C-alpha cells in the first residue's frame, strides 16, 4: 500500500466535512453552538490509540460500518458535556439514567449517520452502519478494539475535535478504518506516483521517531535524575492552518530549533510551566528555592531542549546516512498556539498540509510532562522516506569509538 498526499488531503477534508455535518446536526437539535476545531489523520501504535482519553470520564456511541470502507467510528463526549446536551433536549433528562443514555444514543445516531453518509457520497456507493452501541468509561472502554490485523502494529485513526463555543468542553469523533479497504480506496483516489509514500516506510519512520523519543527521554533522565518514559508517538497529517490548534492554548516553556537537510523544518520541545520549573531545578548543581524561572533555569531548559532535539533527530540522520543540521535552540515561553503560529506560517508558504510528529513523555516521580513536535517540510520528508532503506531502520545510533 502507498499513501499519497492527495488522498490524505482528500480524506482529511472528508472527515472534517463529515464532522461539521455531524456537529451541525447536534447544534440544530440542541440549540447549542459548536465548531469543528481540528481534524487529523494519525498513524499510531494500536496500543496507544486510547491514550488521550485515559484520564477522563466519557460517554458516547460506537458504530461499525461496512462497504467500500469498513471499520468502526465513535462519538465521544465528556460526561458533563453530555449532561448539558441531554438537558437541552429534555429538560431534567440528565437526572434519569435511562433517559440520558437513550438521548446520547439518538444524538449519536443522527450525528454519525451524517458523518458516514459523507464518505458514501464521495465514494459514490453505500456504506452500511450498525445501530449505535452506548459506551462509557475511560479511553480503553470508549474506543473499539482496532481492526484485527496481526501483521500491523500501527493503525490509521481519523480524529476530529469539536469545540463547544462558550464552554470548556470538547468532544471527539474517531474513525478506525480497516486497512485493506482503505488501501483499495487510496489506490483508487490517489494522486501521482510522485506523491506516494509506501506505507512500510511511514511505519518505519514512525518507529524511528519512537526511538528518538526514547533517546530524548533517556537524556532527560541522565541530566535530571528523573526517571522518564517516552509515552506516545504519533505521525499525523492535517491542514497547515490546523497545526497550531493541536498544541492548544496552555502556556509552555521550551525550545524551538530550525533544522536543515533532508528534511528541513522545525522542532519544538515544550514543557508545561510547572514541569519546566521542576526540571530546571533538578538540573541545577545547587537547589534553588524559586517558583519563577530564573535566567539559570532558562539556560538549563535551553540546553536540555538542545540535547533532546539531538536525541530526536540524530536517529533520522544516522538511518538516512546524512546529516541534519540544526540551529542553536531558541527559548520560548508563551501560549502553545502562539509559539507554533509563526512556524506553521513559514512552512505553509510551500505546502497546504503538513505531517506533524508528536511525542509525549511522562514520569511518576514528580509533576513532569514534555512534548516534542516536529514540523518537517512535506516534500523533503517524502524525499527522505523515498531514500530510506527499511533494512537500516535499526541503525539509529552512531558509534563514536569506530570513528575516533
Amino acid at each position: 500500500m502507498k499513501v499519497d498526499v492527495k488522498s490524505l488531503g482528500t480524506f482529511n477534508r472528508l472527515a472534517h466535512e463529515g464532522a461539521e455535518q455531524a456537529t451541525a446536526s447536534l447544534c440544530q437539535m440542541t440549540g447549542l453552538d459548536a465548531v469543528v476545531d481540528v481534524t487529523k489523520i494519525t498513524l499510531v501504535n494500536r496500543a496507544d490509540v486510547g491514550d488521550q482519553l485515559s484520564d477522563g470520564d466519557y460517554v458516547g456511541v460506537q458504530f461499525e460500518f461496512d462497504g467500500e470502507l469498513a471499520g468502526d467510528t465513535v462519538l465521544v463526549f465528556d460526561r458533563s458535556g453530555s449532561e448539558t446536551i441531554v438537558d437541552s433536549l429534555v429538560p431534567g433528562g440528565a437526572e434519569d439514567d435511562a433517559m440520558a443514555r437513550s438521548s446520547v444514543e439518538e444524538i449519536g445516531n443522527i450525528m454519525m449517520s451524517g458523518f458516514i453518509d459523507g464518505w458514501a457520497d464521495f465514494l459514490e456507493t453505500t456504506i452500511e452502519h450498525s445501530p449505535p452501541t452506548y459506551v462509557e468509561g475511560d479511553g480503553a472502554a470508549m474506543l473499539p478494539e482496532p481492526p484485527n490485523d496481526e501483521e500491523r502494529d500501527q493503525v490509521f485513526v481519523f480524529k476530529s475535535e469539536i469545540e463547544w463555543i462558550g464552554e470548556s468542553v470538547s468532544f471527539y469523533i474517531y474513525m478506525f478504518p480497516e486497512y485493506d479497504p482503505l488501501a483499495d480506496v487510496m489506490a483508487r483516489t490517489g494522486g501521482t506516483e510522485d506523491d506516494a509514500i509506501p506505507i512500510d516506510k511511514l511505519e518505519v519512520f514512525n518507529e524511528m521517531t519512537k526511538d528518538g523519543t526514547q533517546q530524548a527521554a533517556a537524556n532527560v533522565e541522565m541530566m535530571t535524575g528523573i526517571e522518564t518514559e517516552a509515552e506516545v508517538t504519533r505521525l499525523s497529517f492535517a491542514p497547515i492552518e490546523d497545526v497550531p490548534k493541536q498544541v492548544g492554548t496552555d502556556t509552555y516553556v521550551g525550545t524551538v530549533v530550525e533544522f536543515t537537510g533532508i528534511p528541513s523544518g522545525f522542532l519544538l520541545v515544550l514543557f508545561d510551566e510547572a514541569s519546566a520549573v521542576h526540571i530546571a531545578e533538578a538540573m541545577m548543581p545547587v537547589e534553588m528555592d524559586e517558583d519563577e524561572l530564573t535566567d539559570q533555569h532558562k539556560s538549563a531548559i535551553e540546553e536540555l531542549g538542545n540535547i533532546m532535539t539531538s536525541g530526536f533527530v540524530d536517529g533520522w540522520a544516522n538511518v538516512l546516512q546524512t546529516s541534519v543540521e540544526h540551529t542553536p535552540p531558541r527559548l520560548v515561553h508563551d501560549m502553545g498556539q502562539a509559539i507554533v503560529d509563526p512556524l506553521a506560517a513559514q512552512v505553509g508558504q510551500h505546502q497546504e498540509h503538513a505531517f506533524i510528529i508528536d511525542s509525549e513523555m511522562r514520569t511518576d516521580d514528580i509533576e513532569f510532562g514534555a512534548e516534542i513536535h516536529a514540523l518537517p517540510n512535506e516534500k523533503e520528508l517524502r524525499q527522505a522516506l523515498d531514500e530510506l532503506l527499511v533494512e537500516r531502520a535499526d541503525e539509529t545510533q552512531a558509534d563514536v569509538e569506530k570513528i575516533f
Partner: protein
Amino acid sequence: MSDVLIADDSEFMRNLLREILEEDHNIVGEVENGVEAVETYKEQHPDLVMMDIVMPIRDGIEATDEIKNSNPDANVIMCTSVGQEEKMKEAVRAGADGYITKPFQKPSVMEAIEDVVPS
C-alpha cells in the same frame, strides 16, 4: 594541570563543564561561539579546547578546522549533543581529537581528556 578553553553557547553547559574540570585543570576561558573560540585560542594557546558543535555565528567544526590550520598540534575535543555519524566524520576531517556526546558524566569527560592530553 592542563589549560582548558571551554567553547559552548549554553551558560548552563559552560558552568557544568567548569565544575567538572576545575579541580584538575586550569580553565583559561569560556566563550559562546566559534569566532570567540578561535580568537581566544590564538591569544591563550590552551592545551585543550572543549568545543561544542551547534553554536551561533560560527559552529564548532568550522572553528576546530581553523584552530587546527593555525596549529596542527592543537588539541580539540568535540563536546556536543549531536550524535550523527556524518557529523562525527566531519569533526574527524576538521582535525578533532576526541568526541563526547551530551549528556555526559564526569568519568567519561575525564577519560576523553586523558586520551588526548595525558596527565
